[in-house]
């Protein structure tokens, strides 16, 4: 009788332990993906509109929550703006019209991908300019170094004359 009881406690111990180990491994592998994004129930007129909704709600930033897009945020304003986005899409507005609509009201802040205009030239072209400057700098330094090496190796005319003298004396 005692033996049976023992075995029960043993299995009662081991089974959860094993499942814990498995779930820890699964968690480490990232297999149990928990989706925390808020769920809205929108009915789209077609698959294309649905995809456009998903893309736009990822590219538009929630005005209140600094670093979340509309798709991620659960704040009141993000929920409202997702609804607005849905309505605008159902009305058949183009992507550009929707972006203009949002920018008119909330400013450039709502765009995760800033528009190309005078104020954003530095943002868009700065990295390219810095990279080009870096490349030019590297090429310039390498060339200078190459030249310096060449002049170090080759003897000046005076040195050559001296060398010739020494060699000829022998």
């Amino acid at each position, binding site marked *: 009788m005692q033996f049976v009881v023992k075995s029960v406690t043993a299995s009662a111990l081991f089974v959860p332990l094993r499942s814990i180990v498995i779930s820890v491994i699964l968690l480490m592998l990232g297999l149990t993906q928990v989706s925390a994004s808020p769920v809205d129930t929108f009915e789209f007129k077609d698959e294309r509109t649905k995809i456009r909704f998903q893309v736009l709600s990822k590219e538009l930033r929630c*005005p*209140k929550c*600094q670093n979340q897009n509309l798709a991620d945020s659960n704040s*009141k*304003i993000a929920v*409202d*703006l997702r609804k*607005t986005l849905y309505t605008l899409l159902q009305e058949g507005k183009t992507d550009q019209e929707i972006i203009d609509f949002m*920018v*008119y*009201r*909330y*400013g*450039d*802040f709502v765009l995760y991908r800033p528009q190309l205009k005078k104020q954003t030239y530095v943002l868009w072209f700065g990295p390219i300019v810095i990279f080009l400057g870096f490349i030019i700098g590297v090429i310039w330094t390498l060339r200078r170094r190459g030249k310096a090496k060449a002049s170090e190796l080759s003897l000046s005319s005076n040195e050559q004359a001296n060398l010739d003298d020494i060699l000829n004396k022998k």
Partner: protein
Amino acid sequence: MKKIIRFIPLILFVLLGALLYRGLFLNPQAMPSAMIGKPLPEFALPRLKDDQQVLGRDDLKGEIVLLNVWATWCIQCKYEHPYLLDITADPRITLYGLNFTDERSAALRWLKQYKDPYVFSIFDEQGALGLDIGVFGAPETFVIDHTGIIRKRFAGPINDKVWQKEFLPLIDTIEMEIAQGAS
């Protein structure tokens, strides 16, 4: 030439340092409103206290109009409320309310309980006007000048300090513009 090149890293460091140092004192929460300099959009919404009466842009009378966005779900609005009662003592401004995505009965109860500082409140249940003027939360306060242009959006609760620092200088400026326009 060579001497100048030697100083380039130092110059870059100082420039970067100056940039980052300035960044330390910027407020990342401060959001400029895209609506500043634009006219208040047209709207047609019911009055909070009378759902039969439809209000529009032209009903916001007064030379300097303050439009305060509020809601009963907004905790900071409660904090702000006594200060709103105070600022209505300033004869230069007219204070209107925009009841934003709220329930009518709760909003009416609120006004009864805490006194009503507004000439009237617009009842924006769906947040339509709120969307059109770029409201992203409550409380927010808009300053609209005598020509119907939005001059300022202040996000957050008003108190004495904010009123003196953020609002009074602008009110003085608009007053001066009005005086200049009249003369």
